[in-house]
């Protein structure tokens, strides 16, 4: 255990930080160079195709951020691209070209894209929405937009689109450099943002959105903000595309183009950024050359390659290269150098009522799972909820942690009613919930898992990844005693079951909760791990004055650590009393008799 104010643990990742920066920077620099000199070496036809391809690659980057990193499979980025293209075309056709108009186009396209994206985001993301549903909505967006464009008459040019407007008077070379540097800039920006502390939240969302919500993060809001940003970038790309090409056509906004973007990202490698850029460039170039000579065969090849990549090589071209390069060593997630203890927040009233449940009921149709459950628990109490399978223990935990779950009654956390609040708002009241199965972010490092857990209180940086990790004392104690401290840079998926459970507990404690809900935390743990866990829990309750509600099957464990036991039976509270009272009670013996006999038999044999 560490009570010192700063526990510095050096890790090998620190030394490589400079080297890593260099490794990241050089390819980008080469890219910039290639774009600057490109127009002198390439023939005019390729330059023309590449300019368009650069704009397409820019949207593809947004698809990669949304799909590859945050896990939102979208077919709808084409709609924002199309919006940008049409805003430019409509303004230039109706009002002519000029600096004022250009500014209006720029602001108008971004604003329109942002508003539409916010609307789409509101429709797609809400507590409990599914990835499939969000994808469905993303599919509807371009379809609706294209129909509106078709029905727009002269205003939108209907099915033939808008052509023949005066646009920016730039040389082809200038367009090439503008579009090319645009891709690099957006790519670099995305790379920096994604590697930052805040960027880790996206991977956390993709891995386990529910865990994020129960770490107090407003996941729908994060997703909506991300979509708005990506939509604005897509609109900018579309604007450039129409500004250069001199045409805005319904195909630019179509669902088909939306799926092509997904294909580009999938082939190049989702979640790599570079893959999205090259996927877009290669497909655009190849189709410009091959769709003339091999019109249908070319699309056939793309279709086959797409199926093959999805089935056999889901990481795509660049993802596979990256996996081969880095797959042998367990990936370290960068430069964490030290663990620090956060100053202790004062416990003002160490015995106040932390949880107050009154008249709580839960029914599915006519089936009543919980009825008239009332109890309260104070800080510094460890209350165990026991009862046979189906007694409603886990349901009760759910009803306390999510305002939408219960059918009747009320719950107060630290004196505040939870009403119909979503989980992340209840976390803000002081609640932490550990799930039954270890629920961590598999693809993040241990340190990053903990960092995501602290994100609610200490808003993370968008540009840098910090070199230290500050945790409250309780969380740090769990990290220290479990041995997680030595494995901070390892991806969570490589941890043993016991260590995952410890990590999730540390994450919950990083929220600095006042009330902790634990659902069978010792299931699947070894005897030694279980004892260690019990010791940590009792200490948390005594020293930190936490109120712990524990669902447990193992009566011996419960007896050792509880300060109070509540027995649930068929959805009612059957008993609520001290350990001695409960253990002596005839009712518990009756309810548990089967289990008791089993255990005796097991011990005897």
């Amino acid at each position, binding site marked *: 255990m560490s009570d010192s104010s700063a526990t510095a643990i050096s890790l090998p990742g620190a030394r490589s930080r400079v080297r890593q920066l260099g490794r990241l920077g050089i390819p980008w620099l080469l890219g910039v160079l290639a774009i600057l000199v490109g127009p002198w070496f390439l023939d005019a036809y390729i330059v023309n195709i590449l300019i368009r391809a650069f704009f397409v690659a820019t949207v593809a980057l947004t698809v990669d951020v949304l799909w590859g990193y945050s896990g939102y*499979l979208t077919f709808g980025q084409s709609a924002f691209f199309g919006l940008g293209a049409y805003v430019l075309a409509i303004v230039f056709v109706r009002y002519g070209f000029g600096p004022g108009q250009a500014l209006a186009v720029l602001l108008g396209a971004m604003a329109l894209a942002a508003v539409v994206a916010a609307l789409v985001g509101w*429709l797609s993301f*809400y507590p*409990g*929405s*599914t*990835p*499939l*549903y969000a*994808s*469905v*909505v993303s*599919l*509807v967006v371009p*379809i*609706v937009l294209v*129909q*509106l464009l*078709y*029905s727009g008459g002269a205003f939108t040019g209907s099915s033939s689109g808008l052509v023949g407007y005066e646009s920016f008077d730039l040389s082809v070379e200038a367009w090439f450099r503008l579009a090319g540097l645009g891709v690099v800039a957006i790519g670099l920006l995305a790379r920096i943002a994604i590697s930052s502390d805040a960027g880790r939240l996206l991977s956390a969302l993709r891995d386990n959105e529910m865990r994020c919500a129960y770490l107090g993060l407003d996941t729908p809001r994060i997703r909506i903000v991300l979509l708005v940003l990506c939509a604005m970038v897509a609109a900018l790309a579309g604007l450039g595309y129409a500004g250069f090409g001199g045409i805005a056509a319904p195909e630019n906004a179509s*669902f088909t183009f939306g*799926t092509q973007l*997904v*294909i580009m990202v*999938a082939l190049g490698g989702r979640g790599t950024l570079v893959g999205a850029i090259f996927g877009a460039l290669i497909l655009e170039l190849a189709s410009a050359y091959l769709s003339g000579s091999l019109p*249908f*065969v070319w*699309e*056939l090849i*793309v*279709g*086959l390659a*797409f*199926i093959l990549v*999805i*089935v056999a090589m*889901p990481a795509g071209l660049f993802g596979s290269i990256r996996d081969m390069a880095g797959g042998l060593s367990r990936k370290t997630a960068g430069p964490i150098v030290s663990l620090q203890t956060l100053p202790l927040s004062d416990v003002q009233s160490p015995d106040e009522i932390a949880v107050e449940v009154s008249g709580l009921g839960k029914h599915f149709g006519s089936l009543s799972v919980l009825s008239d459950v009332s109890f309260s628990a104070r800080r510094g109490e460890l209350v165990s909820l026991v009862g046979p399978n189906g007694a409603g223990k886990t349901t009760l935990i759910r009803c306390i942690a999510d305002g939408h779950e219960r059918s009747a009654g009320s719950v107060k956390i630290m004196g505040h009613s939870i009403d119909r609040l979503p989980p992340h708002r209840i976390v803000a009241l002081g609640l932490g919930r550990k799930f039954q199965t270890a629920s961590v972010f598999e693809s993040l490092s241990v340190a990053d898992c903990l960092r995501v857990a602290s994100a609610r209180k200490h808003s993370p940086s968008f540009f840098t990844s910090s070199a230290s990790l500050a945790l409250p004392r309780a969380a740090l104690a769990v990290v220290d005693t479990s041995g997680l401290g030595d494995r901070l840079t390892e991806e969570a998926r490589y941890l043993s079951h016991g260590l995952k459970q410890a990590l999730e507990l540390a994450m919950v404690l990083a929220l600095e909760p006042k009330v902790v809900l634990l659902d069978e935390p010792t299931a699947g743990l070894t005897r030694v791990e279980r004892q260690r866990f019990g010791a940590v829990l009792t200490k948390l309750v005594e020293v930190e004055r936490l109120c712990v509600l524990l669902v447990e099957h193992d009566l011996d464990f419960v007896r050792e650590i509880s300060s109070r036991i509540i027995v649930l039976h068929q959805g009612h509270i059957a008993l609520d009393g001290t350990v001695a009272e409960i253990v002596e009670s005839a009712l518990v013996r009756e309810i548990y008799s089967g289990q008791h006999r089993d255990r005796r038999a097991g011990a005897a044999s």
Partner: protein
Amino acid sequence: MMMIILDITTTAAILFIVASGLLIVFGVMKIVNFAHGAFMTVGAYAALITSYLALPAIAAPFVAFAVGGLLGAAAELLIVRRLYNRPLDAILATWGLGIVIGQVLTLMFGREVQFVPAPVTGTLAFLGNDYSGYRLLLLPAAVVIGALFTALLTGTRLGLATRAVIMNETLAQGLGIDSTRVRLLTFGIGSGLAAVAGAAVTPLASVDPNMGLPWLIGAFMLVMVSGGSLPTLALSCFVLGGLQVLVSTFVSPILGGLTIAVLAAVALRLRPEGFARV
């Protein structure tokens, strides 16, 4: 007024025929078959060939079912089987399959639009109105498909196994049900039904390699809203299909074309689990 009621009923019947194959695949496999539109197109070309060979028109849906079913089963074996743990990737892979099927059809039959004559031509006097005979014919066809479907699910061993897999796959496997086989058959039947739907709608429209795509989106939304149950699918076809007819008739055909997609998206926002248990 009578015309509109007939329009609504026959539109609902067409939508039901188109969506039922998608529904069975989604219900059993929790996978959205984005090649559904392509399988419809396959069925349409099967009908075209049937009419070229001067076979009786009644043979078209059977030929379509056989071709679509075999193709679907092959696709399940080669592709879909590997993606059960990655439902979003399954959408993408089946979309890729749709591209491949579309391009192969283009290479075989060319891009041009072709026509299949309706087996029933002209109009029928129905309750004092003259109405397209073929559209009316689709009404009993939808009822037959729905009835066969229900009979298959409730009256056969395969149906029992299928329902077991839908409810709890792990348990079903533990009880000795070969869920791999159930899925193979389900995907085959779903694709076969898609092809039947393609054969059924061709006399109303034309045949071209991309004709399935517009149907896919509508069918997909209807399946999502129905939440995977056949009666609710019928209901959503009536409600959303009906609204589509009303909007197309009284507001504008273009907005009518959007009715199903937009209303379904909003309905799902308000009730994410679909309307299977109203």
